């Protein structure tokens, strides 16, 4: 459609005098919006009394039922990121961000009708399916663009954007509570109205990102930046296509690393509030546990920026080695913190663990770029996010299942997490081994451009990919 031609890749090439520092806020606008997903739980209790208002009545939804909203959304995040990654690299970030905004905001509007008519399948279709597709598209859409704008600091750039996904819940949570309080009436919990308001607010906010984002001109590199040939063979100047990348052992090693890191982190996030209350019975109330959960979200957000920025200095392999060595030490310390009843030690351990959970997410796009080049890094990142969906199922299953198993064996609740923590230690050590096994991609997987055969980067960097295709080059 002509009216949507402003979304075309060619129309989003940066003009004269454009500053690349406008791209991170554009990316943040998307990630801060879709990060709302982490705050969906604020709707859980109000949605259990949609009919009864003051108390649940027959026909009202159960909390366990409402939890499916989030599960479906995260599943569709992984599926859509994997499916649409290659499309995104072809059409450019602006169209993909627009599609994300339409799906994510549209999901809220459809869900609002579902809440209003009390039809749960419509809520799942809206928030879960449509919103989940918006999540997946939005999550990966700015990543490859940022990597192209910041070849000198890819970790920091993607960390800035992905930090937004961690920070989005911090905005969404108080915003949702305030909106529900505003719209609540004797006949309504205010949920449907809040969904409508949030859908509109997020659409406007995400459109700011759509209009602001730009692609660098073909062949553009920052002043003074040169891909140096050196001893660091873990960074390639070559490119690998998405289909070819998934046939390399490097992809599956990275997939496993992300999966174990997320599984371990989700284990803490999912159980944070009950865990601290059960491990420190009598010392920590529910209100204080709420503060602990908030602190973890700060660690999650801050870790995304700090660890990924650090990875630009010490390298991706060293950063992940830190996650997989420091992480086990901290997990092993948690039972000790419980045994000596030290809340500060427990909080410190969890805070650093969650910072590394976020750091793992934020550093992985740069690791992918190091291994597979920039050409289809968005699509490859999309495929890799299936590890997240897998971990999203594995993590809670593992933690809840093992805790229940321990309790069934007669272990007191305060000690029911000990075995789980040691399982997490083992998982992270598996990740450490995978990280050690990572070697540069075999040159036979590299993309070799035939004459007139433009790769699906949409031509944003043909000069680089063309010259780099035949020979791997290293950079510091």
């Amino acid at each position: 459609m002509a009216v949507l031609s402003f979304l075309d890749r060619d129309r989003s090439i940066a003009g004269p005098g454009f500053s690349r520092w406008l791209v991170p806020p554009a990316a943040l606008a998307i990630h801060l919006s879709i990060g709302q997903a982490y705050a969906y739980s604020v709707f859980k209790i109000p949605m259990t009394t949609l009919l009864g208002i003051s108390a649940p009545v027959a026909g009202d939804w159960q909390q366990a039922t409402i939890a499916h909203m989030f599960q479906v959304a995260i599943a569709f995040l992984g599926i859509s990121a994997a499916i649409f990654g290659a499309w995104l690299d072809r059409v450019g970030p602006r169209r993909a961000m627009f599609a994300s905004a339409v799906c994510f905001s549209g999901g809220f509007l459809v869900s609002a009708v579902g809440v209003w008519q009390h039809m749960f399948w419509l809520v799942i279709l809206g928030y879960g399916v449509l919103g989940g597709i918006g999540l997946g598209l939005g999550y990966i859409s700015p990543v490859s663009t940022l990597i192209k704008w910041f070849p000198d600091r890819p970790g920091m750039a993607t960390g800035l954007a992905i930090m937004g996904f961690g920070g989005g819940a911090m905005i969404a949570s108080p915003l949702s509570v305030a909106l529900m309080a505003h719209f609540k009436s004797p006949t309504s919990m205010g949920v449907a109205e809040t969904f409508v308001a949030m859908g509109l607010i997020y659409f406007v906010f995400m459109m700011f990102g759509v209009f602001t984002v730009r692609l660098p001109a073909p062949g553009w590199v920052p002043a003074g930046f040169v891909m140096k040939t050196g001893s660091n063979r873990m960074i390639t100047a070559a490119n690998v296509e998405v289909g070819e990348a998934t046939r390399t052992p490097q992809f599956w090693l990275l997939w496993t690393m992300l999966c174990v890191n997320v599984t371990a982190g989700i284990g803490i996030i999912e159980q944070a509030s009950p865990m601290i209350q059960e491990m420190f019975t009598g010392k920590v109330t529910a209100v204080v546990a709420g503060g602990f959960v908030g602190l973890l979200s700060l660690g999650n957000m801050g870790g995304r920026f700090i660890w990924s920025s650090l990875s630009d200095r010490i390298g991706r392999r060293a950063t992940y080695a830190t996650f997989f060595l420091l992480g086990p030490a901290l997990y092993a310390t948690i039972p000790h913190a419980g045994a000596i009843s030290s809340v500060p030690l427990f909080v410190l351990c969890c805070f650093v663990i969650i910072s590394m959970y976020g750091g793992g997410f934020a550093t992985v796009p740069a690791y992918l770029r190091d291994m597979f080049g920039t050409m289809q890094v968005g699509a490859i990142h999309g495929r890799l996010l299936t590890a997240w969906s897998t971990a999203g199922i594995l993590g809670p299953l593992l933690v809840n299942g093992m805790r229940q198993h321990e309790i069934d064996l007669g272990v007191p609740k305060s000690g029911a997490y000990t075995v789980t923590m040691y399982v997490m230690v083992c998982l992270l050590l598996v990740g450490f081994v995978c990280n050690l096994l990572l070697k540069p991609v075999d040159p036979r997987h590299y993309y070799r451009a035939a004459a007139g055969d433009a790769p699906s980067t949409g031509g944003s960097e043909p000069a680089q990919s063309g010259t780099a295709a035949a020979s791997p080059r290293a950079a510091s």
Partner: protein
Amino acid sequence: MTAPGQPVRPGGDAPDPSMTGKLVVAWAVVGIPLAWGVWHVVLNALKLF
């Protein structure tokens, strides 16, 4: 902003006088809501101590 040996795009490196203002606005648009959210979290987290 152009690498050595690469052709300079016409006007590609020319400064945009309104760019500073655009940068301030863009970072404020995302920074203010984020700061508001962080403030709420910090207030809650203080209950821990």
